[in-house]
């Protein structure tokens, strides 16, 4: 039960982190990583972007929860279980970021989800 709860926390904080970072990045507007002069401007924009920073915070939460659950649960259980994140995050993309996801993209995402789960098994 404790393990299930921790896995749920990991999955949701990872998905939240991805969605917040994506929302933040979209607000920063088009970034050019190829121009050195724009990196300083970009760094300032990133540091003043609440969505992006909360995304990073959620990534830290997910990492902490991951380390804590590993103190009693097996990695071979935790790692495959967290691959559900792909489905949850894609659902978040649809509902929160209003991305249009067609059947092909869903199918691909489920293949990835199953593949990541299989790879993480011992």
């Amino acid at each position, binding site marked *: 039960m404790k393990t299930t709860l921790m896995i749920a926390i990991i999955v949701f904080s990872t998905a939240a982190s*991805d*969605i917040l*970072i*994506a929302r*933040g*990045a*979209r607000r*920063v*507007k*088009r*970034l*050019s*990583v190829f121009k050195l002069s724009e*990196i300083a401007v*970009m760094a300032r924009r*990133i540091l003043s972007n609440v969505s*992006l920073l909360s995304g990073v915070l959620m990534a830290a939460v997910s990492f902490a929860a991951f380390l804590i659950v590993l103190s009693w649960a097996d990695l071979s259980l935790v790692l495959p279980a967290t691959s559900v994140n*792909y489905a949850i*995050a*894609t659902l978040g*993309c*649809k509902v929160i*970021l*209003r*991305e*249009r*996801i*067609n059947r*092909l*993209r869903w*199918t*691909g*995402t*489920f*293949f*990835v*989800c*199953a*593949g*990541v*789960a*299989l*790879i*993480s*098994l*011992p």
Partner: protein
Amino acid sequence: MKTVTVLVLSVLFQTAGNLLVSRGMKQLAATSPWETTPWLSFSLQMAASPSVWLGTLLLIIFFILYAALLSWADLSFVLPASSFGYVLNVALAHYLLLEPVSMSRWFGTMLISIGVVLVSMTGTQSAELVKEEAVSQSGVPG
């Protein structure tokens, strides 16, 4: 094309960064296990490890590239598409570190590859999806 370039670069930086940090931490743990070493001395040793520094730098570059990518591409595209990093990890572990790779792991690698190909076929932005759907459903009032 720009999306694919930045995506591949970000995954390469992430994989290299993870490998370096992992190598640095393992070297550190071999000389001073963190259970018995005081945390301050452990942190100082960590800060003195070139592998950890270089790995962290690569992970920072990964994050900048990832954020840049998400500023124009869909997360629902980037997330599954970047999972080819797992395939890369399995291949590197097998060919460079000579780790044995089980049957189920190769099968998982295959599933991820199929998934990445399928997701890539949908384009990188919802705008393109919308256009595609409009073309395929032309004649149907929306």
